[in-house]
């Protein structure tokens, strides 16, 4: 057990670092703001192309597809090093992490030829179109209808919670082609041109004020049968490939810096008993939050170690979000109590730490929901990790159109 690289790893890291230092500007700021900056498309595309040409994009993919033809431990190391330098936002994550791998697994040869390389080079951006308003946690409940019309399909319906739909070139779309069979059997997957007529993208206005997601409406959208990804009625199998790729991505270490922030706040404010930094109740909470953040960090290290050893990571990473989102909300609420009456103020010019905890308070509810609610994630842990049975399903053996739905 040691944090140092093997000689082989060290060599690769040195090489990667040298390349990054030569090609990427030094990071400015605290390393977090980078993630919040608006995506600058051109810079992002240029950076992606640079990486691709140097073999640092999609490191584990075959060179033939524009990848690096490398091992997963190499992509882990490059990721660590890249995180240390200032890089443009990454609008390619969903395409390269989920959509394109799906095309590579389930798509036809022509599509692979057509789509993989441009995506790797950052020339084309993809979004994933699975969730629907009526579906929520239940992606297989998709109602967006695709009806065969000669050599085409005509698509009508609505998707929701789509990231990057407004700047995407293509989308991977899950549709209902047969409502008369059970829900998982009547689905079919297509790729679509996001700029085609019949596709309308609208931003979703979140309670935090931001708009990180879109609604996407389809009105008589025509797609060719050749845009089908996988067989008719095989849509759910294809979707599972996509979602598996999502789960494989290592869950981030989660809020390690939070305890420093609240220490800072505690040293600026006082309680009835004296300085908040000396408040034993707060100190216990800080210890508990720290231990959870550290636990997530070292859990990520364990996952990376598995990757470096060429093993598939265990299920540990599935715990990251459910832990960090709750910590984020608790910590923000505790900060409000410390700021007392003053906590209500959100103006960054007046609020302690420029209102960081007020922002966290308003962002946390989204964290607990996006990418799987606390409840769904616990189901996943209970079923896929612990092997407990699924809850009783009333929606499996009846025709989709006969499944009970709410108002």
């Amino acid at each position, binding site marked *: 057990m040691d944090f140092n690289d093997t000689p082989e790893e060290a060599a690769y890291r040195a090489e990667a670092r040298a390349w990054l230092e030569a090609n990427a500007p030094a990071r400015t700021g605290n390393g977090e703001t980078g993630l919040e900056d608006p995506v600058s498309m051109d810079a992002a595309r240029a950076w992606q192309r640079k990486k691709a040409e140097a073999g640092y994009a999609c490191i584990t993919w075959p060179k033939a597809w524009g990848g690096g033809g490398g091992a997963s431990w190499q992509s882990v190391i490059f990721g660590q090093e890249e995180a240390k330098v200032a890089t443009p936002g990454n609008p390619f994550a969903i395409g390269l992490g989920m959509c394109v791998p799906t095309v590579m697994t389930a798509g036809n040869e022509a599509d692979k030829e057509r789509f993989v390389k441009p995506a790797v080079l950052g020339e084309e951006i993809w979004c994933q179109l699975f969730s629907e308003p009526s579906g929520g946690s239940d992606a297989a409940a998709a109602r967006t209808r695709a009806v065969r019309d000669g050599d085409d399909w005509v698509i009508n319906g609505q998707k929701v919670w789509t990231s990057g739909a407004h700047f995407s070139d293509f989308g991977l779309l899950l549709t209902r082609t047969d409502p008369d069979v059970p829900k998982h059997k009547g689905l079919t997957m297509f790729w679509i041109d996001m700029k085609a007529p019949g596709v309308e993208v609208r931003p979703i206005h979140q309670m935090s004020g931001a708009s990180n997601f879109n609604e996407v409406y389809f009105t008589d959208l025509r797609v060719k049968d050749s845009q089908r990804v996988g067989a008719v009625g095989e849509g759910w199998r294809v979707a599972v490939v996509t979602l598996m790729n999502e789960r494989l991505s290592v869950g981030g270490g989660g809020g390690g810096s939070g305890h420093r922030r609240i220490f800072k*706040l505690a040293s600026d404010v*006082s309680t009835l*008993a004296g300085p908040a930094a000396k408040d034993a109740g707060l100190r216990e909470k800080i210890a508990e939050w720290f231990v959870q953040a550290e636990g997530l960090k070292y859990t990520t290290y364990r996952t990376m170690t598995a990757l470096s050893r060429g093993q598939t990571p265990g299920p540990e990473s599935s715990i990251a979000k459910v832990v960090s989102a709750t910590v984020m909300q608790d910590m923000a609420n505790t900060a409000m109590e410390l700021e*007392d*009456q*003053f906590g*209500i103020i959100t103006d960054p010019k007046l609020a302690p730490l420029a209102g960081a905890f007020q922002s966290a308070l308003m962002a946390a509810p989204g964290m607990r929901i*996006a990418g799987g609610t606390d409840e769904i994630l616990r189901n996943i842990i209970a079923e896929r990790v612990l092997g407990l049975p699924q809850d009783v399903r009333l*929606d499996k053996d009846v025709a989709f159109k006969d499944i009970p739905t*709410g108002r």
Partner: protein
Amino acid sequence: MDFDFSDDQKFLKTEARKFLEGRCGVGVVRGVLDDPAQSYDKGLWKAVADQGWLGAAIPETYGGLGLGHLELCVIAEELGRALAPIPFSSTVYFVAEALLLAGSETQKQAWLPRIARGEVIGCFATSERAGVLTEAQIAAKVDGGKLTGVKLPVTDGDVADLAVVLAKDGGRSSLWLVDLSGPGVARETLQTLDPTRSAAKLTFSGASAERLGEPGEGMSLAEQVLNRAAVLLAFEQVGGADRALEMAKDYALHRYAFGRPIGSYQAIKHKLADIYIKNELARSNAYYGAWALQTGAAELATAAAAARVAACEAFWFAAKENLQTHGGMGYTWEVDCHLFYRRAQQLGLVAGGAKAWKERLVSELERRNAA
């Protein structure tokens, strides 16, 4: 033993709910939320004044209805349930109570009737910086009847006519009445977590200030006012928490996942059961606070702290888990969950946060156990 509201009080509650369902639909709340220029809903304020609610606990001799605090409690619960976007708590729970508690006959005659009629909006200005309010924290001072200093946040300070200000005069602090229409008062509206309830930064530069209550008794008087306000705010919080539970229940009954209402899954059922439990504990503590407030019992300090601690916990938990129950939709601007999430914080902070009240409660218990 009669530990519940009377039939008359329950009738008043029913009437108040009907009234607010008509006059304070969510559209009214969102009107204030979406329009930065609007600090409160003037139409609703007028209508509430016409109902006489502002003077419910103000004696008839001062132009009120003289009903009493139990009646004010049931009104408060309904205002909280409706998320009423008006300066009711500042004017009634804080300023009117401060006048009733410490005001001279002249001061009461001068202000209470106008408050009861809805002609005067009040605000309670104590905080100056982040952290729990302590005597040491107070920099504002009065010299020769002139107040200088900065107070923020002051709930409803941007629209108030009359402020009760905690400021020093010599070494120790006193409460002061300040007519905000006079000179030496600058106001700046603040951005807050809950735009449906306004707050301001008040800058005083030689504003005329008239002492309220005994000199040097500022902190102790402020605490007595806070105790009274805490009980009334607890009823607003219980009202909001119950409404949030109803929202969650309604959604859980009609939202389906995997072919079943999500309310048939234990994760949701037990979450809602936990909200119910916290709400009932908060309600029972609030009732005890109401009794102590109405009877002026010696237990008021303990009862008020217990009511506030339970109510802060209940509304915060109900608001955040109602939102969680709604899933992605709950996080959107269009769905009302965030209105309760915001108000839970506003009510949880306006009289000071739960953490400080827990400390007050335990100090009271120590005093008791020692006695």
